[in-house]
């Protein structure tokens, strides 16, 4: 498998995770550690399949996914903000509810159990851009993805702009840094938190819809830990949108590498460790490097000082 294919698969794999990660990033910027990204993504996936089934249109299916996910997150928001439930406990219960409900509803809605496959006409359409064929390597990697994946690639830049350059972004940062100060500055803290969570819900719905509609089916538990990967990606990146783009792509690259290295004879379990080992290295390496550089600089200035002293 060549590097271009690996990178293409990486982008394709990172798409849904990126959407969900951006949602989680916005929530964590207002100090809500949304552990339940996995649950919201699953609900988005299931609802998008239900929507596409009943309306016969892919994009209406996406809309359904977004609406369902946003509705759930509003409930979550009410519980954490108004009723002051512990966010982590609430998140765990949302995840449990989401997986139980989506599994249970397959029977009443579709009459099947375990998975439901739509007709292939309802697959997420893949966009082929002719002008990208002219660009040698990057063009091939970025070509032939769905619209939602392209949106996911552009979103970090949009979010970075919104957070750093707009008034709304300033409000978000203020609430995140010091809620009481924000209140005294006249910022409507509850409104900001709710809106951040709602955007989170929309993005999780989009991520789930992309995941499900690109294979035009729903399978019980199909998110398979992507919500947690998104959380890890944004925590690694310190909740910075552009760095999160890089970490999500890194995770996608690692998964793609695992796929390409299979079939050679490595233990599939050891291969499965690869993305997480890579993430650990990505988390630890910059800090280790920083300390080493700091140590070297200090040593250098110390020897300089001592030689100065002896010269005098």
């Amino acid at each position: 498998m060549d590097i271009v294919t690996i990178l293409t698969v990486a982008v394709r794999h990172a798409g849904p995770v990126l959407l969900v990660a951006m949602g989680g990033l916005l929530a964590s910027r207002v100090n809500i550690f949304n552990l339940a990204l996995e649950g919201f993504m699953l609900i988005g996936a299931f609802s998008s399949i239900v929507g596409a089934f009943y309306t016969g249109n892919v994009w209406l299916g996406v809309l359904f996914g977004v609406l369902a996910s946003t509705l759930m997150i509003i409930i979550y928001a009410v519980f954490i903000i108004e009723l002051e439930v512990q966010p982590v406990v609430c998140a765990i219960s949302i995840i449990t509810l989401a997986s139980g409900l989506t599994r249970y509803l397959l029977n009443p809605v579709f009459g099947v159990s375990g998975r439901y496959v739509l007709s292939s006409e309802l697959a997420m359409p893949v966009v082929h851009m002719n002008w990208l064929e002219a660009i040698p390597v990057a063009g091939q990697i970025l070509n032939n993805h769905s619209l939602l994946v392209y949106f996911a690639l552009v979103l970090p830049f949009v979010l970075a702009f919104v957070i750093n350059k707009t008034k709304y972004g300033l409000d978000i940062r203020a609430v995140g840094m010091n809620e009481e100060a924000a209140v005294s500055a006249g910022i409507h803290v509850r409104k900001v938190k709710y809106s951040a969570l709602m955007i989170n819900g929309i993005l999780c719905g989009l991520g789930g819809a992309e995941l499900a509609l690109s294979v035009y089916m729903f399978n019980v538990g199909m998110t398979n830990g992507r919500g947690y990967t998104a959380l890890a990606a944004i925590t690694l990146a310190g909740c910075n949108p552009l760095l999160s783009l890089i970490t999500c792509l890194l995770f996608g690259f690692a998964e793609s590498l695992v796929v390409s290295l299979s079939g050679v004879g490595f233990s599939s379990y050891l291969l499965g460790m690869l993305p997480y080992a890579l993430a650990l290295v990505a988390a630890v390496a910059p800090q280790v490097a920083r300390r080493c550089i700091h140590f070297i600089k200090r040593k250098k200035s110390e020897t300089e000082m001592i030689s100065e002293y002896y010269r005098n």
Partner: protein
Amino acid sequence: MKRKLKKTLAMMLAFVLLASAVSGCGSKSGGESEKHRIAFVSYQAFDSSEWLQNLTKGLKQYEEENENVEIKCIEALAVDQYETKVRACCEEGFDIIITTYSDMADATIAAAADYPDIKFGILQGEMENIADYSNIADFHLNRTETAFIQGCAAALMTKTGKVGFVGGSDSGGINEILAGYQQGIAYIDNGTEDVVTYCNSFTDPTIGKEYALQLIAGGCDVIFGAAGGSGTGCAQAAEEQGVMYAACDVHYTDAAPNAEIGSAMNYFENMVIAFIDDTIHDNYQGGTSREYGIAQGAAGYEFADNDLAPQDIQDQVMAVSEKIAAGEIEIASEPLHK
């Protein structure tokens, strides 16, 4: 105000307790002496694998056709629930209890020791000292047989000489299927080589699709998916790329309507029903281990409705099937390579 609240709480608690006491009284089903109560405890979710879905459907049908039989299918998905659920079944008056896979072997042994009158059966248990347990019967469906036939079909149908395998996990059950597949390919002996991958998930069609796409890009034109829900993704990949798909336990009429060359069907329900029939007709063989395969009607190779295999290849494949049923071909259960 606080006292009032406490009072209401106390009343609510009392009500709940009273309600449960009252409703708990009459809910035990009177044991009719003729009815056999059978419990089937699965270590996997019922909707996770196709063979398990077929099994539960078959058991429900059997229950409807036979009035003297009551079957309850129970999931025990976490390791700490195996023994407690089996014991709960013992206490609730089930007289035949069927457990699954070597994961539940210890739980079955412990419960069987305490309830010598209950007849236990274990599916794919692979218990070594089965003779020591007189009230446990081990039955095993040899999935290598239909996988062998699938390997033959794949080797006969391939035009590029390369076929692929996507397994759900690198474990005994899947490797059995892989072993049959590889030996089937070797049996046809036309230079076909196979590539083995494991996608480490039974519920992720997106990643299954990626694994299949990678195999296809590497030159495979037949993909054999033994990975539950992830396999559906493999079938989709085969359909989209115009290559052939070899199915396991199911026909992918929804995901791959034009790509299938045949399905290695394993009728676990036939095996379990045979065990139940034997047991209720006083033919219970505790302490033994029985193998089921094509010859016992517990497995078979089926072609899809608009199958890609032409008639002569279909005939060749069914001839192999008959040879296996007659016991003329020996199939080992260890894969040749990974």
